[in-house]
């Protein structure tokens, strides 16, 4: 009985040690830049939907560059991490996102090797959830 309990605890501890913190996954240790899948830098004005996210581990924040009306708008948001019911994610800009690494074979990744999906969690006010596919 005690042996199986210890075994379960050991398994749980190992699993939690291997489970990556979503912020360090996005920040890649210190700081990492992600772009939305399908974004290609160009000299002219940016396109609607273009976005660049730079995640930083310390201080925990994200610099969001979003294209609005052909020009870039930059904002900096503080990040917190969360985990509940076997899911983990980050919260920034007033939205709670679940972070999931996707295989490059996923159609939404369009062949990008490093691909993550940020999915807003239902807030109980609206039935719509928002999905952001990022790559670097």
């Amino acid at each position: 009985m005690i042996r199986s309990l210890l075994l379960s605890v050991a398994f749980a501890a190992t699993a939690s040690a291997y489970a990556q913190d979503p912020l360090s996954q996005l920040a890649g240790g210190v700081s990492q830049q992600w772009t939305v899948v399908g974004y290609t830098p160009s000299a002219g004005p940016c396109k609607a939907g273009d976005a660049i996210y730079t995640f930083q581990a310390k201080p925990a924040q994200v610099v969001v560059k979003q294209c609005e009306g052909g020009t870039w708008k930059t904002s900096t948001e503080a990040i917190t991490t969360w985990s509940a019911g076997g899911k983990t994610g980050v919260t920034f800009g007033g939205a709670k996102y679940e972070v999931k690494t996707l295989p490059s074979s996923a159609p939404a990744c369009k062949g990008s090797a490093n691909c993550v999906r940020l999915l807003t969690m239902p807030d109980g006010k609206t039935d719509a959830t928002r999905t952001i596919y990022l790559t670097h």
Partner: protein
Amino acid sequence: MEPEAPKRRGWDLSKAVAPLLTVLGISVGAWQFSSQMSHESTLEFTRSLYNKKLQAYEEVGKAVGDLLAVPHDEQLWISATDTLAFDSCLERFRTCYWSVLPLVEDSVVVTSMITFKDMARFYRRGENDYHDLAREGMSLMNACNRSLEQHWQKKKQGEE
């Protein structure tokens, strides 16, 4: 002649009190009857609401079960041969989602339905595997179960 006066006063008093007591008795009876009727109708309403909820959740459960049963061997990723059947089941779940969702007051069930709908979409796109879909399906059905339990507890409290 003088001792007759108090007798008449006593008689007058009982004559005045008797109708008052009758009126009071009738009023209390009527109030008890109407409050009992109101309690009964509240219980009847709660009972019918419970049945409606049960029916709605049964529909949700059937739609979830159909979706989860599409991959016959419960393979990890959706296969090309299952996509047509999966789309058809997903359509049925979405119909159920839009018909049931506005009626459901339980926020946990609503959240679980949204999460399962998203997960079905992601499974269909090959972003999440069967285990994720099955897990969300189970948590949706658990949420429905808890919602019914809570409703039943409230109903029992109302009957006591």
